[in-house]
């Protein structure tokens, strides 16, 4: 089932184009990773999808409704985890959750239950009575996420939920996201961190300069940029390995020997790793094998010529 879709959405800030004919479909049960450098329009995309800002042209559809997609009925099914930590500092963690639960129309026993559930879910069950000012960065982030969960949204939008936190909290959050997906929540996830997308996203959407420049599963994307496979082997006795017999294997383009390392470059999907290794093994001991595969960062670099993250940043 289609959860949300954008068709030909155009949006400007002043005369600057931030969304340029965006087409995006979100199907039920997906985790979509939205990638892009700063200023690519990710946040604006999220804001138009949730009705926070208006757009000039195009159509947004939420839960099958195009006429009035941002009705309260639809908003009840959406949860937003903001980029900044948007909780009240003068209220306790629990009160914060009660506030948002109340705004989403929960009442009485149900509210109590859901608040406790959300606290439990992000692992703050024993810290409910504390002020967020006393929390560590990771705990604040988790509270920030919990605030969007009390009403059990069908579509959860997470705008850089893991910026600037320790690896442990980040893992916790990623696990939580997977748990949410398993319980049937559709998730739109933006981040700078490739590894996160690679580990959780079922589909990746790459944005640059207000346009969606590529979408697909992680593997599909990697395949589009991959034009050769590299296998590096550390061997005991590189001289004795017959290079020409390696070169004869189907798909192998080139064999380079440098020091104790043999690098075999072959065409994509030639599936010859087995044979290469068995030949090398015959003549020398293999100490280590390393297969270079492109990652999403390479995909992005290939598509736009830019790095996703500033090298020095963060």
């Amino acid at each position, binding site marked *: 089932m289609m959860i949300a879709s954008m068709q030909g959405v155009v949006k400007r800030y*002043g*005369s*600057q184009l931030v969304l340029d004919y965006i087409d995006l479909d979100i199907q039920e049960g997906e985790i979509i990773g939205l990638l892009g450098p700063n200023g690519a329009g990710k946040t604006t995309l999220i804001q138009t999808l949730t009705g926070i800002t208006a757009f000039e*042209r195009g159509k947004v559809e939420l839960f099958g409704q195009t006429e009035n997609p941002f009705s309260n009925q639809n908003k009840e099914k959406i949860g937003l985890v903001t980029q900044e930590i948007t909780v009240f500092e003068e209220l306790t963690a629990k009160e914060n959750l009660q506030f948002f639960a109340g705004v989403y129309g929960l009442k009485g026993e149900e509210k109590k239950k859901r608040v406790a559930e959300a606290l439990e879910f992000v692992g703050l069950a024993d810290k409910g009575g504390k002020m967020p000012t006393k929390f560590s960065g990771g705990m604040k982030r988790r509270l920030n996420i919990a605030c969007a969960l009390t009403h059990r949204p069908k579509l959860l939008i997470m705008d850089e939920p893991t910026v600037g936190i320790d690896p442990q909290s980040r893992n916790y959050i990623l696990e939580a996201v997977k748990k949410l997906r398993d319980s049937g929540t559709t998730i739109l996830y933006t981040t700078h961190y490739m590894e996160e997308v690679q580990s959780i996203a079922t589909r990746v959407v790459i944005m640059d300069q207000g346009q969606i420049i590529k979408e697909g599963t992680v593997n599909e994307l990697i395949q589009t940029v991959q034009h050769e496979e590299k296998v590096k082997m550390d061997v005991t006795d590189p001289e004795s390995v017959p290079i020409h017999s390696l070169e004869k294997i189907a798909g192998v*383009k080139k064999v380079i020997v440098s020091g104790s390392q043999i690098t075999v470059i072959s065409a994509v999907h030639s599936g010859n790793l087995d044979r290469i290794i068995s030949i090398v093994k015959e003549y020398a001991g293999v100490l280590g094998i390393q297969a270079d595969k492109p990652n999403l960062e390479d995909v992005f670099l290939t598509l736009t010529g830019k790095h996703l993250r500033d090298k020095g940043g963060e």
Partner: protein
Amino acid sequence: MKKLMEPLLFVNSWRFLMMGAFIHLWVLGDSQISSFILILLLLLMTCLRWRFALPVWFVLVDILICFFYFPYTDIAYYGFALPIFELALKGKCLFSLFLCAGVFFAQASSSFLFWFFFQAFFFGVFSFIFLKNQEMYRVDIDEQRKVRYELERIKIDLLEANQSVSHQAELMERYRIARELHDHLGHDLTGATLALQAYQYVQEPEEAKKILQEVKNRLERSTKSLRETVHNMTPMTRIGVESLESVVRNFQQKDIEFKKSGNMLLVPVHIWSLLESCVKETLTNVAKHSNATKVEVDLQVTESIVRLSIKDNGTAKKLSHTGSGLRSLQMRSRSMGGSLSISHENGFLVVCVIPLDKEMLNR
């Protein structure tokens, strides 16, 4: 800086400037409490317009407020500048002018009031035209971009379809060859091998001779069938470099030299078709327009690119135009991530370079 160029900012500045002007008039003029309330009411309307997009007929409220204050204060006359501006801003210039004239003649007309109205009308019309133009311009460029994106998408789709078809065809062919070889050769060759193995163990010369004869028969048969298979599979139509060569050979008018280097099998089908058209088109051009006697066609294939250069020794400095054929070829090569350049210095020269990297194609 960009924000400063927003026309709506100017519209709102004008509106609030007017408020300042009214207050100025009020302080210098009568300073009655009642007329101060008029200014407050007008301020209220202005704020509403600032925050919300009010419909045009809302100016009636301004007009009514000012009308009601006619008997009490002069500021009411000046207050009409607001509806005049708003009407003009919404493109109702005629109403605006009418209002202008009506109020102007209803009052003991002073030249100051005239200029006051005039500037309101002028700024209103100006903003109206400016906003309209901006909107039109935006719609226009949006439409243009949309068309361009659609074209690009179609082109990429076509290209991908093309590629996948040629890939499929290649696979099918490979499969057919494998079947044919297996069916026609495999049986006999296996038999021959087995017979030879048996031959090693056979003691009797009679028997051995018979087996050897068998092997010989089988090998003869398979050689024959290999020849037949290859003959059957050799395409009747020429493809790849052969077709290119045949094009060159069939071109009679000029003396042509054809050179090639590199592994021709690296070049996929869709590129061959482009190269072929390229050669044909260029040679036709040369035949039509050039006084050359000799043409050199050079095809180089490397790991990463295909480069086709066609050069004649003509002296015509400039061919009047690049033929539409060549221009469309330029487009096609660009869509494959390559380029086609044409030059007329020292004879006619066409160079077409297409990358073979897969990644370039996916752009």
